[in-house]
């Protein structure tokens, strides 16, 4: 089976999961106490007639299963609805915030893979040596630090006391930068949040790389490569690392969900204008369409993350057959 067919099959496989997710979240949200109309009406209260009409407009007076079918139909036609609160289309709200989150996530993922793999290879070369031990202690510690606390400490020290980096937000809007200056300014604001998230993830990657490198280095073909007199760096990178990366890639794919969770916490601490904060605000205002749109969107992101993992897996290991 070709890679393309395999991927199509994986996509189709995701459909029932998506429907399950839709039903799950819909039921949860509707069973919960609270009513969006009360929020919209506000503190002053309102005429019962107005309240009833608002309910009817939103379809909230229909039985739950009718609302569910209406919602599924709407989603299938590609419409995530309008936010109850800001009246903006849900897809627009999400897409507005997506770049900020992606920027943060991709940067930290690239950095933590590069640094984590490098540290992993370094410690796998001589397991038990002092370099290995200190790297292991470092990553065990980094692994146990809650990302939001790390963020707070970075803000406190590097932002507040030392004034090295901006503490909050993504850009200096007052300066009205454009072009390169703008990019640099965003990068400057990214330093602290990316540091916090990278530290957390590189620990995981370092440990995985180390374990699978040690295993691979004991394999016959590596011994053969060494015996052939290849340079140590060639053996490590060309022969061993390529195979050692497979489990690392798998785990990153599986951990995609927690990457997003980490993003919510980090975005909250650093006031980063991304999806995480959007979700949190939507919960506070009981914005049903936005919450559900976000949830579905993140499910799709997770599926895409898994597909990317599959592709990477295929690229790294041509032996895999798609049966």
């Amino acid at each position, binding site marked *: 089976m070709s890679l393309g067919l395999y991927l199509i099959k994986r996509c189709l496989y995701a459909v029932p999961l998506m429907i399950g997710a839709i039903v799950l979240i819909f039921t949860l949200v509707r069973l919960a106490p*609270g009513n969006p109309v*009360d*929020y*919209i009406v*506000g503190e002053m209260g*309102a*005429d019962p007639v107005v309240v009833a009409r608002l309910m009817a407009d939103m379809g909230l007076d229909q039985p739950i299963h009718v609302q569910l079918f209406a919602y599924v139909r709407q989603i299938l036609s590609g419409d995530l609805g309008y936010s109850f609160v800001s009246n903006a289309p849900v897809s627009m709200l999400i897409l507005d915030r997506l770049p900020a989150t992606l920027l943060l996530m991709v940067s930290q993922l690239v950095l933590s893979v590069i640094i984590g793999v490098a540290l992993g290879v370094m410690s796998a070369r001589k397991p038990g040596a002092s370099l290995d031990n200190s790297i292991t202690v470092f990553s065990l510690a980094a692994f146990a630090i809650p990302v939001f606390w790390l963020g707070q400490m970075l803000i406190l020290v590097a932002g507040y006391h030392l004034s090295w980096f901006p503490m909050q937000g993504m850009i200096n809007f007052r300066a009205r930068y454009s072009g390169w200056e703008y990019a640099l300014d965003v990068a400057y604001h990214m330093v602290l949040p990316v540091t916090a998230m990278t530290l957390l993830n590189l620990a995981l990657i370092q440990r995985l790389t180390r374990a699978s490198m040690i295993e691979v280095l004991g394999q016959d073909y590596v011994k053969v490569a060494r015996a052939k007199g290849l340079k140590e760096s060639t053996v490590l990178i060309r022969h061993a690392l390529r195979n050692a990366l497979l489990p690392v890639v798998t785990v990153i794919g599986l951990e995609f969900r927690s990457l997003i969770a980490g993003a919510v916490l980090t975005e909250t601490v650093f006031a980063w204008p991304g999806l995480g904060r959007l979700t949190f605000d939507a919960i506070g205002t009981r914005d049903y369409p936005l919450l559900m749109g976000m949830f579905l969107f993140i499910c799709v992101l997770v599926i895409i993350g898994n597909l990317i993992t599959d592709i990477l897996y295929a690229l790294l290991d041509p032996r895999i057959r798609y049966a």
Partner: protein
Amino acid sequence: MLLTKHGSLRRLLGAGILVSSLTLGVVVQAQEASEIEEGGVLVVVLPGDPQGLNSALSTDTASSNIVGQIYGTLVRLDANGAVLPYMAESWDISADGLTYTFKLYEGIKWHDGEAFTADDVAWGLWNVNKEFNGASAGLLAAVESIEAVDDLTVVFNLSYPYPPLLAGLAYPNSATILPRHIYDNGGDPRQNPANQAPIGTGPFKFSENRAGSYIELVRNEDYHIEGRPYLDRLIFQVIPNEAARGLALERGDADFIPYYSMSLSEYERLSGIEGIDATIHKRTIAGEYMAFFNTRNEILAIKEVRQALYHAVNREELLEKAAFGLGKVSTGPISSAQDQFYTDAGTFYDFNPELAEQLLDEAGFPRDSEGKRFSIRISYDQKEGPMNNTAQLIRAQWARIGVELQVTPMESGAWREAVYRRWDFDIQMGTWATGPDPAIGVQGIYTCETIDPDGGRNASGYCNEALDKVFFAAAQEVDHEARVGLYAEAVDILTADAPHMWLWDRFYPVAYNEGLVGLPGDPSAYGPFDNVGWKR
């Protein structure tokens, strides 16, 4: 004409100051005009993204503040709450109070170049604001019809006199005027694309909205008031972290922290910093933090229990630790910010745990073997700043008299539903406006008829016919002194029965760069910033 204009309003607000403050305001502005620089940028701090950019639809304060720069209203308020012309040049109120006729300024243009007419006013208020906005529906409840007589004349016909209408038309959260040529397209106004890129008549035009980050407005060159606004750009920046808001002002990254973004804990520090002015705004609608007892609860139905609990609250400590001293311990249901009606008479509940214990013993709730009398819940909207700390403090204070308090913060929507619709709470608290007039702010939370799950605000379920009589008499009384007397009587009855614990009268602190001038005085009616500018 001035007499008819304000005749009925005066009856309610007891205001002889209206006319004088109107002239005074003009003089002050004229003096400052020569000292204000043309141009400049103003950065205003927002606590989070505003609900939306169409106040005809949403009512939160932050959106009103922003929308009030982009859209216009018929009239505006000065710092003392007096009504000034804005898009309406003048108005006339018929002697019976049933007909309001507004004359609009000539030559006002929408930001897209279309002419603004009386038709916009009549159509928008009737078809959008009244239909989709709870506050608007309340304001326009007495209005039977709105007619555009000609391009510059609009008439409101009322079914009964409603004096608060005029001042109410100054509030962007209920009386924003929308462009008919954009909203009258047969579609749902809530889904109109203009809600994301509004086109108004105000001093600033919408430029960009970077969600979660900032909203940028730019000067409207065709603004109908000559020489205004001063500023070139107006930026509303989102800073969710409270401490970071103060730091932004301190470091010059932001210029103005309005009361709805102000971190109470930062106020004292900011007021000591050179180059920053930190002051407390007076708000005519006078907020008061209070806790409602649910009198349907069989324990809280007993008056002595409510009095005991009230005596066991150390309100000085609440004010100090939860509000950082920004308030005044309340004496009753009318805030001390309402000079004309406030009275400190009535029963005052000082902090007296011994008396509280004695009252509880006598009411039949002795301590059990573990020292506990009973357990009750307190609920509140978790987004209401000082309430988290207040709840924790009361929990600790009541633990000392053997009452266990379970703290249940709720998400805004769930809280409203539990409190107003299902009455599922023991004690609930938050901030309520007791102004601008007790007939509007106070009466509605205590009378029997407002015990109604469909929009009634008397959540505590307290019903006292004697009190109702006093309130109704006061609302219809024409003589101001007589009204003051009637409300003092109501205060007497209420403080004796204690269906609520009135915690503290709320102050509204703001902080801004001292180079700024012309910020509107009353933060509840954040009108246009067209007079705001930087000192030369």
